[in-house]
């Protein structure tokens, strides 16, 4: 049995040299400038958390790093060398493994085939199917889900189950840098916990991790660095020593109102009984937004 790996040597890099460095990177899709002048440094043994509003450009950023899109401005350096990855395959050969938000699995292919896609185990020229099934099942159990029939097409699994498979795959094959785009969004409490533990484990194993999330609590649990994107710009870039969870939450759009929201909603007696109604289109009145919220929104 041969285990193929794109980066088999264990390299020890000088800790101060970042493995990946983005300088003034910009990206436009036609008339949309999704990213503008973004600077980002990824170091091995650290978790870089990228946070930001919907549409801020987080996914665009990681798609550039993982070779799915090319950037249109600035420079990206890997090990100090300017790189344009032509395809995700090139990026992977450099040791970058990514869990995308929307691109994950071929829905008609079964679980184990998806798990090992592009990293198949072979026995001579042929696939080593028993081993692949075993490894795949084990890895999924480690992530906290059991899928009894690994020959089921992934398209028939629940959203969360699919997400777990994608994460398990990236972590299993992970090389120098692991990128996770909102990995816990579709996950239950238990699976989220497992994923966070894995992120910490990966960091401790000396990998560089980029972790995108909307949940400041999750970010603060594992993050070493925090980058907040706003409308394609970096609006905050701080080490965790420079920041508290409260500050981080406050920096996120809408973060300030989070606490108020709880009060506001709790104030509405949740046990109260209202008269049943059928409501015509537009009949649900929009919640009253206060001045702060309104101006915050207009910034978007």
């Amino acid at each position, binding site marked *: 049995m041969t285990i193929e790996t794109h980066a088999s040597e264990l390299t020890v890099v000088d800790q101060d040299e970042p493995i990946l460095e983005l300088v003034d990177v910009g990206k436009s899709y036609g008339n949309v400038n999704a990213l503008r002048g973004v600077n980002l440094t990824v170091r091995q043994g650290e978790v870089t958390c990228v946070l930001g509003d919907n549409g801020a450009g987080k996914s665009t950023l990681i798609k550039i790093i993982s070779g*799915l899109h090319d950037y249109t401005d600035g420079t990206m350096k890997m090990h100090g060398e300017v790189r344009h990855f032509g395809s*995700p395959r090139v990026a*992977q050969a450099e040791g970058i493994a*990514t869990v995308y938000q929307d691109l994950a699995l071929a829905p008609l*292919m079964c679980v184990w085939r998806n798990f090992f896609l*592009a990293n198949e185990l072979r026995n001579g020229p*042929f*696939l080593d199917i028993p081993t692949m099934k075993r490894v795949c099942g084990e890895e999924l159990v480690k992530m906290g889900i*059991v*899928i009894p029939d690994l020959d089921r097409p992934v398209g028939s699994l629940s959203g969360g189950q699919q997400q777990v498979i994608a994460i398990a795959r990236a972590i299993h094959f992970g090389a120098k840098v692991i990128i996770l785009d909102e990995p816990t969004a579709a996950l239950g409490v238990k699976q989220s916990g497992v994923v966070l533990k894995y992120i910490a484990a990966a960091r401790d194993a000396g990998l560089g991790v980029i972790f995108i999330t909307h949940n400041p609590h999750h970010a603060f649990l594992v993050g070493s660095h925090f980058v907040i994107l706003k409308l394609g710009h970096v609006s905050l870039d701080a080490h965790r020593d420079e920041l508290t969870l409260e500050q981080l939450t406050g920096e996120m759009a809408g973060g300030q109102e989070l606490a108020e929201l709880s009060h506001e909603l709790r104030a509405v007696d949740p046990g109260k009984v209202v008269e049943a109604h059928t409501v015509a289109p537009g009949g649900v009145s929009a919640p009253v937004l206060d001045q702060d919220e309104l101006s915050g929104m207009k910034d978007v």
Partner: protein
Amino acid sequence: MTTATVTPTDDRVRTRSAISSTLRRPEVGALIAAVVVALLFLAVAPAFRSVGNIGTILYGSSTIGIMAVAVALLMIGGEFDLSAGVAVTTSGLAAAHLSWYFGLNVWVGVLFALVLSLAIGAFNGWLLHRTGLPSFLVTLGTFFVLQGANLAITRMVAGGVSSNSLNDIDGFGSAHAVFASSFDIGPIGIQIPVIFWIILTVIGSFLLLRTRYGNWIFSSGGDPAAARAVGVPVTVTKIALFMGVGFCAWLLGMHNLFNYNNVQSGQGVGNEFIYIIAAVIGGCLLTGGYGSVVGASVGALIFGMTQLGITYAGWDPDWFKTFLGIMLIAATLVNLYVKRKADAR
């Protein structure tokens, strides 16, 4: 917490019986459909019952099946090849013209045709990749271009619309033996393309299900963006699939050339659809990402049996196409029905 209640698996999932897992495979439905079609013709067509005719049916199916194997792989990989029919003719013509015009050993022509066929396949794949056009359009372009070239070059080289006979050129005998011989197994006369067909089916099936490359094919067809994102070389995979079609076109082209001694430049037009039909009857999805090589071969068998069976049964030839259409739909419905029943168990 006690460990007594621990259940290691999700008890909601019933393990499938071996039989129902088997029935779910895409080729099994096609096989059952083939049996149904065969039974029908056995019942209505006396000539169909004679063992000696198996050879004819297999031969008729093999000339579809050789191409259907490659076309099915291509379709599972998410692409079409509308030039597959004329490419067979192009390959035959290329070999014939080169050998005849320069008086070279036919094997030189055969090799040249192989290179040309692979090159056409590679060109299709490359153009697809470069332009980003759908393969329907790209290969439609190739289809027209080859059709014109077949005719025009044949007129230029051979001075007519069919290639000249190669009987008396060196190497004809050995080439004929390789590409167009036949032998008997008991009462059944087997032509060599039947053997090619079976070998290709086995290789194609292994390739698809038991090699890394098969995984890439499934994913390139099922979700090319996702496949690319996880590092599958989608472009290379697709180009190779087109070249596979080129290879099979060459094989069939050589058979046609040496079995019928010459190739007419207008031949092959329309056959591309028969190959696609065989693949679809055999359970391949038009949208890619799902299907089976064995299924496609069985699809070719169903098509071949139906085509000849209608003649064996002596049904009114005016209604030939109507019978054909109904039988094909019926066979596909049997396939679908088996799959649904198996899924629901």
